[in-house]
């Protein structure tokens, strides 16, 4: 099963490097999430064009792990941010 949803960062949400903490952070309304390496790797692929399946495919090659293992984790991570309205799905 391929997940064809395309996520994007809505206005008011952005990711940036936090030099003080040495981490990537995701900033949105009243929220600041410190991203770990995996979280950042996923978010770096969220470009408003690539589907969840495509992102999972790229990460699968990058981390040399089976895509059927990676895709549910990627989807769960992105769905969590969707529920917080830090991400949106392209209509």
């Amino acid at each position, binding site marked *: 099963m391929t997940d064809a949803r395309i996520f994007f960062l*809505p*206005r*008011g*949400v*952005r990711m*940036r490097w*936090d030099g*003080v*903490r040495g981490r990537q*952070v995701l*900033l*949105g*309304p*009243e929220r*600041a999430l410190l991203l770990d390496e995996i979280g950042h790797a996923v978010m770096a692929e969220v470009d408003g064009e690539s589907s969840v399946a495509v992102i999972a495919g790229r990460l699968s090659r990058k981390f040399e792990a089976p895509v059927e293992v990676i895709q549910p984790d990627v989807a769960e991570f992105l769905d969590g941010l*969707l*529920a*917080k*309205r830090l991400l949106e799905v392209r209509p």
Partner: protein
Amino acid sequence: MNTPHRRVAAPPPIAMLAELTHRCPLACAYCSNPLQLLGAQAELDTETWARVFREAADLGILQIHLSGGEPAARRDLEQLMAAASGAGLYTNLITSGIGLTRARLEALVAAGMDHVQLSLQGVTAAIADHVGGYKGGFDRKMAIAAEIDDLGIPLTLNAVMHRTNISDLPATIDMALRMNARRIEVACVQFQGWALKNRAALQPTREQVDTAKRVVAEATERLRGRLVIDFVPPDYYADYPKACMGGWGSTGLNVAPDGRVLPCHAAEIIPHLTFPNVRDTGLAEIWRDSHAFNAFRGTDWLPDACRGCERVNQDFGGCRCQAMALAGDPFAMDPVCRHSPHRAKVDALLAEDVSDDWTYRRMAPARP
């Protein structure tokens, strides 16, 4: 004149509340500003705020809340927004909407404003204008909410709830949806400062709070992915205290209009604290070294009963300002806690007669 005092290591703060001014056209009886309000002549100027914003970013602060009073009362708000955004901070404007226009909103967006938090006093003009003490305020707020939506600015509706308006919670949530808000904060009044003074008129009943909790739980499910609902309950009915500020001096700081830096907006009521000022001390030094920020940092200073409690790392002994206000001792266990020797004081307040009158927030006559 630094006297020796305890210092506790703390991670860098995440957020700053910048109270740009105490001036405000509204006069809400629960205003979080202190009872002794500052006039315009006491306020930091544009350049000093801009320096503070840069110091904040260097210290590790990620988010800045430009607040008041009503921040739009500052004619240099657009410049302050540009300075905060230019420092790399995520910018949030906390406003009643009064004093904003479409042109000012456009200028603020151009200056880098990320998000607006609009306060709501009630869902009808009759209630809202009564609560805010400002006739016509509701209509002006609705007009500016429409402009915010039209400009696509990310919006949180901040609905402050109390006895007079908490029963309108379903209509309040509907209003957030109509405004295309992404978030709503259902913030029950916390009894500090003006709100404590007016508690008898503001305190919701236990039944009202229980109903509100059910409404929030239902709406959270129904609106998942569409509207984020954050609920701040009134803690007098709770068995355990709130984790005030996530622990004293742990995540955020508050800069008052005159430049004094406080661990929270209510901290002025604790008489043995003196607050350093950004006019003469750097923000990093204030955060790391000042007595005020170290006074209640960590948990080792807490009463034995708190330190031995399994909840100590959840609520950190509760709110210091509440301990001061109700128990007369900022080192005491938060009187809301069911284990507090002062809990009877909270229960006595809850048993008091309610009042239909409140004292509106007003500036005291200027002191000589």
